[in-house]
């Protein structure tokens, strides 16, 4: 067993599960989507991205790309949240919540791709 692989897999799968946890619930209902969960998703995703740095293989490049996509989507979701709450002052209405959740949903797709790639890579290792 390789500790590095465990940590790597842990963060990639944790990113997906947390993302799923935030995404699930009534689509535009702010009560069903916890801000702490979004914070955790962002932090875990950033860590997963950094862990993928510096891998020169084709698979490594693809994994890094999916992570960067997820980061982008989640950061935009966080910015939207901060904007409606503090800058525009419209508050978390159903439209704002809808766009935040759909952005997080996009990030979840990228995270799913990440996990699928990880599984494919592992399956190819016949050991």
């Amino acid at each position: 067993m390789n500790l590095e692989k465990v940590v790597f897999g842990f963060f990639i799968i944790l990113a997906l599960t947390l993302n799923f946890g935030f995404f699930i619930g009534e689509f535009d209902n702010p009560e069903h989507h916890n801000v702490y969960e979004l914070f955790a998703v962002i932090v875990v995703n950033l860590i997963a991205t950094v862990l993928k740095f510096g891998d020169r293989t084709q698979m490594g490049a693809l994994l890094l790309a999916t992570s960067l996509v997820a980061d982008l989507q989640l950061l935009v979701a966080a910015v939207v949240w901060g904007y409606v709450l503090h800058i525009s002052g419209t508050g978390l209405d159903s439209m704002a919540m809808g766009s935040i959740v759909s952005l997080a949903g996009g990030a979840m797709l990228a995270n799913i791709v990440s996990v699928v790639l990880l599984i494919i890579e592992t399956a190819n290792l016949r050991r």
Partner: protein
Amino acid sequence: MDKVIFLFLRRMRAPLLVLIAAYSIAVLGMVLIPGVDAEGRPWHMGFFHAFYFVSYMATTIGFGEIPYAFTDAQRGWTLVSIYLSVIAWLYAIGKILTLLQEPAFKRAVVEQAFARSIRRLHEPFYIVCGFGDTGSLLVRALSRRGIRAVVIDRNPDRINDLELEDLDVYVPGLCADASVSAYLTMAGLSSARCRGVVALTDDDEANLKIAITSKLLNRPLPVICRAETRDVQDNMASFGTDHIINPFDTFGDRLGLALHSPGTHLLFQWLTSVPHTPLSEPLYPPHGKWVLCGYGRFGKAVQKSLSSEGVEAVIIEADPQRTGCVGYCVVGRGTEAETLLAAGIADAVGIVAGTDNDANNLSIVMTAKELNPGLFMVARQNRHDNDSIFRAAGLNLVMHRSEIIAEDILAQLTAPLLPMFLQQARAQSNQWANELVSRISAVTGDMVPEVWTLTLNEYEAPALLHTLAEDDVYLGQVMRDLRERDHLLPCLPLMLQRGNETRLIPAEDVALRSGDRLLFCGKAGAMQRMQRALYNGNVLRYLLTGEERPDGWVWRALKARQ
């Protein structure tokens, strides 16, 4: 993708993870710890404010308790956050600085910059391996002619010299072992714009390796090598190295030529010197007894050519055992009067100081001059930086190894027909050479002429080919000045090659044909003017007919109306 970016990202993993962890812990703490608002009601800081606060606190840009004054619990957490985040930043910045200082990283950055400058080189170039005396002479001469070169040398000092050198064109240089194929490839060996490889390192083995690598990786590419021993020379020739220069043989050969026919020697000297330097004086080495000090590679080459001219040479050698001249040489260094007298310096006509020590060589010729002031003095100069003392010694002929090699290679690279011309010139009489020399000096004055090859093809003479399809053009017509057609360009045709047939000094009434190759020598600038006429149909028409026809749609229309 680029090696540098990968190296950077890989090394930045740990510092970035530490930063992310420090930030998220600090932000989360600020959000979770309860505070009070202005009216004293319990209040929780949002992520937006928490991130804002941590951002300016961690980078120590400023400090302020916003939006409401902190409670003691919040202040306690801020204390923890300050130490946490400042340490994380110091660690990250420290890592970045160490990475930038790391030799492996620096090396990767330098290599990448080199590879990029090779990719951006959109003109044909030569790879020059070795930037010592010879390499720097060659690169300087090439850059003066606007020819691009790429330099590889193992010695970092020499690459620094290259960067400080004031060259006319930019010459990228890499500090690396040129005999490693990866570096040759990096220097553009397999590039379509690479025109040739020149191996000039002071190590015969390295030159051999460079030649074989170049021939294997890019077969049609011309490879020119320097070799100083016979077996390496044969080895290089065995796998098709295009040109091998042995400076000792070349010099011995030239000395023999000067003895045999001074005019031909002068012609050789003029056509192969570095352009835009003063022309050398003719040499008349005397026939008679010569004294030869040092019987190494140089001495052997000189002795061979002297004896083939029927000139007697007495050898002085300090170590006859090693150099293989036991029995028929005078033992000694030649720097002292007794040895020179024993060799019969009193009734000799010439002396050759050919040891591998510059100080000894100068001492030999100075001592010999005192014993016999009328001597013809030849000395071998080993180091480039002894130039001034060799010049002051008033020698008749100096064998300067790096100059010989550089001139030979320059002729090979810039005028491919020149070696063939020189070979044929050898077969001509001294009288013929004398006449040609006086014609050259009439055309070019007292500076070394430029020598260039012109091929009548689509690339070099499109306008001329166009005219040739309809009309005859004579050699004398293209040698006219485009500013005033009654004036001749200051140049002289040396040779015309048509198929397998060659003609020395073609006359002006020779009709040109497509595919002809011509060798010219002339003043600086004559080549550029001739090329302009061969490129531009209007200029060529003026040269041929004296008619200046207007060009452009409007002018043509006006002209047609007249």
